[in-house]
């Protein structure tokens, strides 16, 4: 199926949810509201003509001072059977950065959602294990947000003192470090 046809189908099925359909270089993105994201994804996954069985990618995007609402969660879907693609973008506002998890539909969304939570601070409701994944657990801030600086003040990692103390403790056992 052509990507625009797919977008039309989603629009037909969920007329109140679809905000906008954009197209760039033959790739179509469907911007949707976040409330029924599970229903939309379930439909895309289960419908025999669409059959998006493969979640190629899931990531966040921050449109600070450019778009309202600020965040987007981007789903790249692919169908192994029909060989078509679509991009789904769910809008997430800054004051309520929560969205439902799609791990129940695609198990592969697990770590992608964790990463999105780690780097953008978006909370995925119902996620089985929502912890930071790439950064240390006590990291402050969300690095991929646009208001997070590339180069911050030179500050030691808060856990470093603990490591140094441990090293001192182990010195009596002959540990050279």
């Amino acid at each position, binding site marked *: 199926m052509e990507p625009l046809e797919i977008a039309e189908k989603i629009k037909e099925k969920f007329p109140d949810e679809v905000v906008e359909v954009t197209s760039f*270089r033959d790739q179509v993105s469907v911007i949707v509201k976040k409330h029924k994201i599970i229903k939309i994804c379930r439909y895309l996954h289960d419908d025999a003509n669409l059959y998006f069985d493969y979640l190629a990618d899931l990531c966040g995007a*921050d449109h600070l001072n450019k778009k309202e609402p600020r965040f987007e969660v981007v789903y790249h879907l692919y169908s192994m059977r029909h060989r078509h693609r679509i991009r789904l973008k769910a809008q997430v506002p800054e004051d309520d950065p929560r969205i439902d998890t799609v791990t129940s539909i695609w198990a*592969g*969304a697990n*770590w992608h959602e964790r990463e999105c939570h780690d780097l953008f601070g978006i909370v995925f409701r119902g996620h089985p294990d929502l912890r930071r994944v*790439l950064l240390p657990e006590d990291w402050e801030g969300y690095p991929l947000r646009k208001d997070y600086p590339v180069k911050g003040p030179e500050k030691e990692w808060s856990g470093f003192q603990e490591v140094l103390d441990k090293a001192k403790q182990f010195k009596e056992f002959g540990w050279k470090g």
Partner: protein
Amino acid sequence: MERISSNQPPLSEARIAAELKTREITLNMGPQHPATHGVLRLVLELDGETVVKCTPYVGYLHRGIEKLGENLTYLAALPLTDRLDYVSAMNNNIGYVNAVERLFGIEVPERAKFIRTMVAEMGRISNHLLWLGTHALDIGAITPFLYVFREREWIMDLFEELCGARLTLSYPRIGGVRNDLSQKFIDSLYEFTEKFPSRVDEYETLLTENRIWLKRTKGIGVISAEEAINLGFSGPTLRGSNVKYDVRKHAPYDAYDKVEFEVPVGFNGDVFDRYMVRIKEMRQANRIIRQCIEKLPKGPIMADAPEFTLQPKDEMMPVTHPAIEHAFYIDEKVCKGCGMCLRACPAKAIFGEKKQPHKIRQELCVACATCYATCPFKNIRIIPGGKGLSEERLKELAESPIPEEIAKAAEHLVKQFTIIRRGPRVPEGELYVATEVPKGELGFYFVSDGRGRPYRMRIRAPSYVHAMALPRLCEGGLVADIISNIGSIDIVLGECDR
């Protein structure tokens, strides 16, 4: 020693279980474990030899490549992609430049496409060789490790001949490739393609029918096709489960639609099948290289798109060539004293007050033409052969028009300068482009706001997805099989952590 009296009643099963309390052991494997292929850490809960729970921890190699990429021009972010999967840097580069070219809307010349396909398959072979060596070494076969490095070294030497680098190559460029192939390179590569199939036979003699190898790989880490798709697997890891998904076939890029090759698949989805898929893939890669050499067309290696790509260096030669001794001279009458050239000059040869006409100290000037390219008002004059002349003479010469050849070259230089410093003007939009790297599907998602840097750069790393699935593969199996499983999904943590 106390003797057990015979008149005690025999212990019931329940009583034994109650008296001998068993507790699961928590074992920390990694992050510095040689068999985890990098800084992967697994926290295991063990019931004897059986893995009850496996929790992977990643992120020890997180360098924020996505964030860095968002603050660099498209061209400058290219070397970052080498550092993703450092075992097959070439394929990462090609994935990146393909995505950027689609975004810019550049059509790459045919010859460059074939060269890229050729070197990408070389990257695939070198990656699979390293994978085979380490995977076999982890399971206990030492000999293949020595064998594969013989061929890998050959490919490394070929890469060195190609672009001067062995590991972090950055050979492809946006719009083509950096330089053309030498005859020596083609000859050596052709010889390689002739010998390589027999070398693969050698590895297979050591492993494919080896009883220990079969015991350690058959029926281990089995995953069904549906589940593998659902988990987001890609590449040989997915094809091992009998799913014929290959980006090179599903959405061909470069010259993959012009060469013939098969996509090997496995049937059971176990460690052995994933091994067989990679072995067969090496043979196919060899076939593709051979076809690329035979079909290699003549023509340019860089796209003709001067607003996006770097143009050949010799076109700018008349401006920066050291043999022609230019002098640069600031037109005092029109200089507004904005200070742009003053800040940009690497030799610190420009001086002057703000809002007053600047001057160039001719004895310090190295004739690099940076000021010429920086000046927003085009007030700097090039005076060919003007080096060493007096100030008055330069003033006189500045009035006369400069030769056309130099004017044209200078225009080129300014374009080049803009592309490197500010980045080209990019169409607004967003794009996800996937390519088939040896590990699986490497996707780049760009959001462009029209400026010279990506607004959002997202890297979909196959290793990250595969590392996520480790609990699914390992839980319920034995400790020793974890090693087989980690080897069979072929992860590199540089790519996983980004």
